[in-house]
């Protein structure tokens, strides 16, 4: 089994009210020096077998078409992760 991680974030120009609320809460908690917080999604995808170029291309496609919405979000596919219990 191999593991792929897909991180999805709102595009920089899209307002992130959740991130802003967290940012304000952090300063109330006494954490000083916080400039900016943005909140996103982290998908862990475990697949059978090896990460062949075909498998990675499939994952990239669903990351672009399903896991993220290209109108408002950017995504990054990462393979530098260890699968648990593999």
């Amino acid at each position, binding site marked *: 089994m191999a593991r792929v991680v897909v991180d999805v974030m709102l595009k920089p120009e899209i*307002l992130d*009210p*959740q991130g802003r*609320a967290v940012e304000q809460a952090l300063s109330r908690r006494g954490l000083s020096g916080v400039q900016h917080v943005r909140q996103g999604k982290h998908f862990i995808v475990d697949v059978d077998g090896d990460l062949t170029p075909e498998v990675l291309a499939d994952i990239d496609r669903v990351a672009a078409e*399903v896991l993220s*919405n290209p*109108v*408002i979000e950017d995504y990054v596919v990462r393979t530098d992760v260890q699968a648990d219990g593999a």
Partner: protein
Amino acid sequence: MSARIGVVTFPGTLDDVDAARAVAYAGGEAVALWHGDADLKGVDAVVLPGGFSYGDYLRCGAIANLSPVMSVLTPAAEEGLPVLGICNGFQVLCEAHLLPGALTRNQSLHFVCRDQLLQVEDTTSAWTNAFEPGQVITVPIKNGEGCYQADDFTLDQLEAEGRVVVRYHDLNPNGSRRDIAGIRNERGNVVGLMPHPEHAIDSLTGPSDEGLGFFVSILRTLTTEGALA
């Protein structure tokens, strides 16, 4: 024979019963469509009602967009089948790329529930031809993720082509860009809006009966086009 208007139910849909009631009030026959069936039952038009399909998991409307009923509805809409998406239905239409842009979390972070003034700007669409241009109507709005977003190019294009169908009038409840409450596709058969016209069809149970115009419009469209002749 009266027009047959499909109303889709997804898991988590809330407003299918009110949408069906609105269709009947306007003189149409409401036909129940099921998310798990790739079957439009030969309807003349479809309403995607509000609610929280699939619990709003992933993104609002994202999982509904991948359902069997959408696998037949999306191509039918592209070919001209009239479709009205209300609230969550609008989110589904954006996820299906039948309408441009996306709906994101309200700027205030609060769920908004109020009677909302709307200005009807486009009366050429299949769902708004019973209104007067510029008419101001009151219908309820209730959403947590109703902030309409699109890039400047898309917004300019929507405005230039007269595709902003309804705009928030007295105040902007969710931070939507350019006060946009609802838009249409180029052809005018697909309309999506965040406010809920199906909750304003009778002053006994809503703030007005002005939402009925959307449903009267589609019946007029179907009759005029001769689809039912």
